[in-house]
């Protein structure tokens, strides 16, 4: 029912090249490549912090509201929201932006950790990949929020940040130096007929 693509953003280009995930471009040195994918040391958004249980009611409502704008999307109960989005080390990383004065939760960004075994490589055994999960940006520019997500993923020692072209992700992929991946990710429904949708109408992230 939808055909989507992964995009990849190098966080640790040297390792990605060493394991064969990506390659050094012609006329490009490692030093320049590393510099190109460099990121600021710390996030820039004021009030950005890890999400805690007390944020969930508000953040859940905001996320559900946001998701309804897509053609195909889940709706989460608060219990499900807590399960899927409260941070768990090495599994799910979620951050919210709390407005400094109103203390409202204006934004949320999350990514999950799905490493891959590196097969037959002498130097590396695992590739640490972060995958973009659910996001809403009601107070911060999505581009700035995602830039901060990249920084946070790098801080947590991820090598690459992956995102599909679903949700509103198209709006930041190129600018944040994501490269388009090979091939497509196909979404299917079993026993449900509906019109095919464009990737940016998909509000559903599958693990």
């Amino acid at each position, binding site marked *: *029912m939808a055909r989507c693509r992964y995009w990849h953003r190098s966080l640790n280009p040297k390792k990605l090249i060493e394991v064969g995930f*990506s390659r050094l*471009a012609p006329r490009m040195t490692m030093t320049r490549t590393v510099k190109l994918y460099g990121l600021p040391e710390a996030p820039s958004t004021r009030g950005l912090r890890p999400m805690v249980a007390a944020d969930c009611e508000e953040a859940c409502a905001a996320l559900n509201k946001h998701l309804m704008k897509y053609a195909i999307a889940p*709706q989460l109960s608060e219990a499900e929201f807590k399960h899927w989005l409260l941070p768990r080390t090495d*599994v799910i990383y979620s951050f919210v932006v709390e407005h400094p004065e109103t203390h409202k939760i204006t934004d949320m960004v999350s990514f999950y950790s799905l490493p891959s075994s590196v097969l037959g490589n002498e130097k590396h055994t695992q590739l640490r990949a972060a995958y973009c999960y659910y996001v809403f940006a009601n107070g911060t520019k999505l581009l700035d929020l995602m830039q901060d997500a990249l920084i946070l993923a790098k801080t947590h020692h991820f090598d690459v940040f992956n995102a599909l072209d679903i949700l509103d992700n198209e709006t930041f992929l190129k*600018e944040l130096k994501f490269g388009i991946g090979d091939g497509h990710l196909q979404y*299917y429904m079993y026993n449900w007929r*509906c*019109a095919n949708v464009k990737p940016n109408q998909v509000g559903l992230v*599958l693990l």
Partner: protein
Amino acid sequence: MSEPSGKKPAENPEGQVATGKDAIRAALQGVQIDDDDASGADAKHLFWDTQPVPGLSEDFPEDGRMGPIDHTDLAAVRKEPYTLPASFQWTDVNLDSDVECKELYTLLHENYVEDGDQMFRFDYSMPFLRWALQPPGYRPEWFVGVRVAQTQKLVAFIACTPALLYCHGTRVQPSQPEAKEDEATSSDDEPSVVEVNFLCVHKKLRSKRLAPVLIKEITRRVNVCGIFQARAARPRFLRAPARPPARPPARPPLTAVPPFLRRRRTRRGSCCRSRWRAAGTGTARSTPRS
């Protein structure tokens, strides 16, 4: 191109089950093997052509035809598990048990989705598996495993989790209700669909059509609970930007197109039409559907 088999697997000869490789080899003797490299829109899908999924070339109007394809009567749902080839048995994988969770981890760690050149394989951690498979409302009987009877080795798996899904403003569920725009966030939060994931068959048991049995069995177990819709995706292992990322115009390209980025699918272990088919037939040569 494969021929539809439709045959039931032959009985496994007695006395051949030993341990390890022998056990697996013996188990295989009872299984119909198809050399299936069918691909493209004209391909016959032995299994999927029998299932309520949209056809490959089917076009959908923008409106009007949304809804269930097959209206199954709950009372008509088969009550007994499907029959596995001899030498195999069903098991519910208990994720609360560290031992069984580790068994599942190991099965996936060694046999799950790889890239086309076998340089990378997804490595879902045990905490991740518990997170992904045990959301509120999960059911232990939806963690469907297959063991070799003799050795009790876990050799195949499929799972699903409940979810509430909206499609064009309509709750995805068996009997399509009137679409009420403002009802979306206020209607009951019972699960409407299941999300199928982690279909994996041991590498040495590929091409043996175990995957269709796994899919039919998990479908049956879900149907018994009154849920008749599922969602899935084909999480291929994708890597390496195929085009350089956005950059200032004066700079040289950052990344080249690696020659290994062939359109090739291998041993996908999960939950979509093509992957299921690939896992069930062992083919690694079919081209992605478009």
